[in-house]
């Protein structure tokens, strides 16, 4: 990954994180809040691969944890795993599939919601299953709406040509 792409990637993650915590988190549609950061992260991971996805997820999660003065590392852990899984999906099954962004966003939104609930519960913080899991379904819908526009924008910003995990060499067995 070239330094310019890395810088743009960092910028996208930073701006996405800041907008998520400051502007978008207060918007409620259909009882849920759209998670622009998660959609950005899934797109980054699909475009740049699992490693970039995991690092971007960790950084974005850390910004969210810091900015919201929450449990440090909690969102970072979740977004690290989300970025990694989205990247692996993009490198394997979802490679060059047109529906990959949509499918990845829907699946990871659901898994993210459930994992966040489980992790919060395991940490001993009071959390209502109904309050935590009920917004997952409308959240999936909202994030699905964002999936293609965000993916297009992210691909233009940080695409940079080839994927990290695409075959870049040919080995012939003789």
């Amino acid at each position: 990954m070239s330094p310019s792409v890395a810088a743009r990637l960092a910028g996208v993650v930073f701006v996405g994180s800041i907008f998520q915590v400051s502007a978008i988190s207060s918007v409620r549609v259909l009882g849920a809040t759209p998670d622009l950061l998660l959609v950005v992260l899934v797109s980054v991971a699909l475009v740049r691969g699992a490693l970039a996805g995991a690092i971007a997820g960790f950084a974005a999660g850390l910004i969210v944890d810091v900015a919201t003065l929450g449990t440090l590392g909690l969102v970072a852990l979740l977004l690290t795993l989300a970025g990694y899984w989205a990247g692996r999906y993009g490198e394997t099954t979802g490679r060059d599939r047109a529906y990959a962004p949509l499918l990845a966003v829907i699946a990871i939104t659901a898994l993210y919601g459930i994992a966040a609930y489980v992790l919060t519960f395991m940490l001993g913080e009071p959390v209502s299953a109904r309050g935590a899991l009920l917004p997952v379904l409308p959240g999936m819908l909202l994030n699905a709406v964002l999936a293609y526009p965000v993916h297009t924008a992210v691909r233009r910003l940080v695409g940079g040509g080839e994927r990290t995990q695409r075959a870049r060499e040919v080995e012939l067995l003789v």
Partner: protein
Amino acid sequence: MLGVSVRRPAAGRFPSRSTTALRRRVVVGALVVLALVLITFSFRQSEDGPVASAQGAAASALRPFEIAAERVAQPFRDAYAWVDSLFAARSDAKRLKEENDQLRQRVIQNQFAVRENARLRGLLDFRDGPAYPRDYQGLGASVIARPAGAFAQAIVVAVGAKDGVAVNAPVVTEDGLVGLVTRVTSSTARVTLLTDEQLAVSALDVNSNAAGVVRHGRASAATLILDRVPKEAIVEVGDTVVTAGWRSSKLASLYPKGIPIGKVTSVGQTDTDPYKQVQVTPFASLSALDAVLVLVRKAESLP
């Protein structure tokens, strides 16, 4: 293929797949461990520990960016809030309309209850008053139906045989005589009104004591006539007509004596008719009855 020269990649320029996978796993594992360490520190340290202090400092550093992002997003949020308020206004209008309908129904019910209360209070006053026949028991009853059709001068009330109501029981309101029970079921009774053609009541002019029979008027369904009044009897406009309540050795009037029926509104006579033509307007508003008293003769007063 043997004999074919293959250009191999320069060592170290592209990492092999296994190396890449290993590096990826190591980095992700390290990030996960780091996140877990941060969580652990975040939980174990107090509010003024180094991790919390670092978090606070970083949050302060991020604050200007958050404010900037908030300002950038504010117009979009305002636009969204405006659209959302439109939907909310529509739903509010719908909810308020439903509430308004419910309240209107409640107001109508309250008005009806107030009117019914006044009627029942009037009936109670009448029952305790001097005009009430002492050898009768009054059963208060709501009017539950009015047979359809202009020719059916009757009502259905919500008392019946199980309440002690029998056929030919007089029915009154606090204003005066209404009619007679002509059909009884276990819980309801049909009351034929004074304005029905089949009903006739022996009556007296209170002032002159002139006797006659009150029955339906020919002019309109709402008026009555006092028939069979001799020409020599004195009846004047404004006189009050009450039930005669006669009793012979074997027979007795169906109606108790002295129940107000109506007021004389016109008196006339012709050479060809042996009786006066006396028109009476009933005291009871027979077209707007809500509650009535069915008079049931007390057991000790039965002949």
